[in-house]
């Protein structure tokens, strides 16, 4: 009878030890916070012609532009932003959506967003249009037709649920090459995104601290 009582005790010990082992093997990775400069997002057409040209794809996991057809999170062409989730919108040359990523805009400063709130609803691209609406004042930018300057709307933060089910927050700082403080729309090249972002590489971790 003594041996029978002893066995469950040993088992419990083993399980507990293996748990603590796992923790040491994969500690939480730190939130990556950085600024990406001059992401070039050219487009062709426009001014009455249909807009075309491939999107410039960005992957938060590597923090780099990518040519991968599947391992990308968001993509840029001109002032349009696509997300790798949902379905094609129907525009020419857009990438196939291969994942279940989502994106949304919240109001606040970059610092305000310390975590993804529980009730955050992420949108995906669809036949009805892009998850981030296009057009001045509708999404992330204003276009001032008196000065011909496109500027990111202050206080608009993009939240992204990535293809790996991780979270990122993004603030677009400039649409012009080298992010000039005083933009000359006839001198400075446009369609160059400078944005800062924070990315939590731990799956389903919602905080940005």
């Amino acid at each position, binding site marked *: 009878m003594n041996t029978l009582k002893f066995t469950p005790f040993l088992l419990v010990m083993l399980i507990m030890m293996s748990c603590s082992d796992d923790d040491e093997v994969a500690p939480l990775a730190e939130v990556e916070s950085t600024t990406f400069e001059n992401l070039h997002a050219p487009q062709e057409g426009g001014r009455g012609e249909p807009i075309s040209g491939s999107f410039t794809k960005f992957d938060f996991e590597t923090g780099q532009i990518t040519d991968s057809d599947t391992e990308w999170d968001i993509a840029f062409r001109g002032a349009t932003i696509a997300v790798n989730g949902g379905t094609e919108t129907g525009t020419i040359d857009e990438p196939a959506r291969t994942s279940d990523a989502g994106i949304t805009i919240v109001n606040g*400063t970059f610092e305000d967003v310390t975590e993804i709130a529980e009730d955050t609803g992420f949108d995906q691209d669809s036949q009805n249009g892009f998850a981030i609406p296009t057009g001045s004042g509708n999404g992330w930018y204003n276009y001032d037709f008196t000065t011909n300057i496109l500027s*990111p709307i202050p206080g608009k933060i993009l939240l992204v649920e990535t293809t790996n089910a991780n979270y990122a927050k993004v603030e677009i700082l400039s649409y012009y090459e080298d992010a000039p403080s005083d933009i000359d729309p006839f001198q400075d090249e446009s369609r160059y995104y400078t944005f800062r972002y924070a990315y939590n590489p731990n799956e389903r971790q919602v905080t940005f601290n």
Partner: protein
Amino acid sequence: MFYQDIDIAGESEEWDTNFTSITRHKWSPKLHADYEVYFTQYKANQLEFNPINDEILFNSDFNQRLFRPEVRLTYDISSNQEMIAGIGSNFEFLDRNLFENEVSFYSQYIYAQHSFSPLQQVDVILGGRFDVHSEYDSQFSPKASAIYKLNDQISIKSSVGSGFKAPDFRQLYLDFTNSAVGYTVVGNRVEEAVVERLQNSDQLLSLTLDLEDLGQPLDAESSTGINLGLSYQKNKFDFSLNAFRNDIQNLIDTRIIARKTNGQNVFGYVNRDNIYTTGAETDLSYTFTENLKLSVGYQLLYAFDKEAEDRIDEGDVFIRDPETLITRRLERSDYFGLPNRSRHLANFKIYYNIPEWKAFVNLRLNYRSKYALFDTNGTGLIDNYDDSFVDGFSLLNLTLSKSLFKNYKFQLVGENILNNEQTGLLNLPGIRITGKIQFQL
């Protein structure tokens, strides 16, 4: 004649005519009636033509007439008590050759006021007015004021009251370009049409607001105001100080709707929903002799939109620092206030009369501190990060007047005689000289 552009030449003329007649009828030693008839006409004609072949491009006649009969009864209750009551009607007509039909407004009003002295040093006036308008809502506007005479030199004045102002025809239908300076004023209901016309003739550099914001219906303005003032008068010295606070719903205000290629602006009218103005004004004058008088005035003004303040308090207004590109919340201290309002206004006047020449000279120096023209950074309000600020400036104006024969008066008015040319957003018109002849019956 003034050439605005090599392609378009223009002429414009404005006339103002006023006529008032008052007939007094004494019913009894205590009761009399005044029958008043007031007529005013404002005409503005504008002609634009091609200077090469004299082809008429645009011809506009604006003819606004107002006819106002009023009956007023005054009853002297006692030596320090008086009742006044009146009833009147405004008949307003507008003829414009660009409209098919004449436009007309009718409004009626009735008012009464009671003035009395509850104490020997205190005068009180209580009154009210009711306005009925054919186009806008009716409104009752009460008013109360009191003056307390501390002694022969000092008196304290205070008043509370409300007011009502319906848009007039100019604010609704005017389409006028001043040919001497080159700016354009557009009534609310013709904004879209005028902007289109100016665009088609390449007179516009840019719009300052979205096309769909043009021509939003204009409402009547209503306000409540509180004043508290002090005046001091002794011998040749006159001083007054007044603090005010006005809360205005649907303030009818001018706004810039477009910039023109000639460096001037196109002005339109807009309602500002929920605004307040508060501040103080002071005047000081000294009469050296009967023929030489000097005066200085100053006004401090804060004019804010309450809804803009609420948006700031709720943390809904963001700005991007132009240097670091980092976004932060706009604070109350960044909010400058309503467009076209200077925090400080000051004036200095000298009046010099030369009786042996039957002439006088009037020199006026006006200063206004910096102000902003419109929002440039998408916050929907004027903040310190906007690019449309006009620096503070002064203008010196001079009037020379001489009476001739029995009934004639000749006047020469020089505006901006130091030829202050503001650079940047505001193009001041430079020296302007106007001549006037007045004939009195």
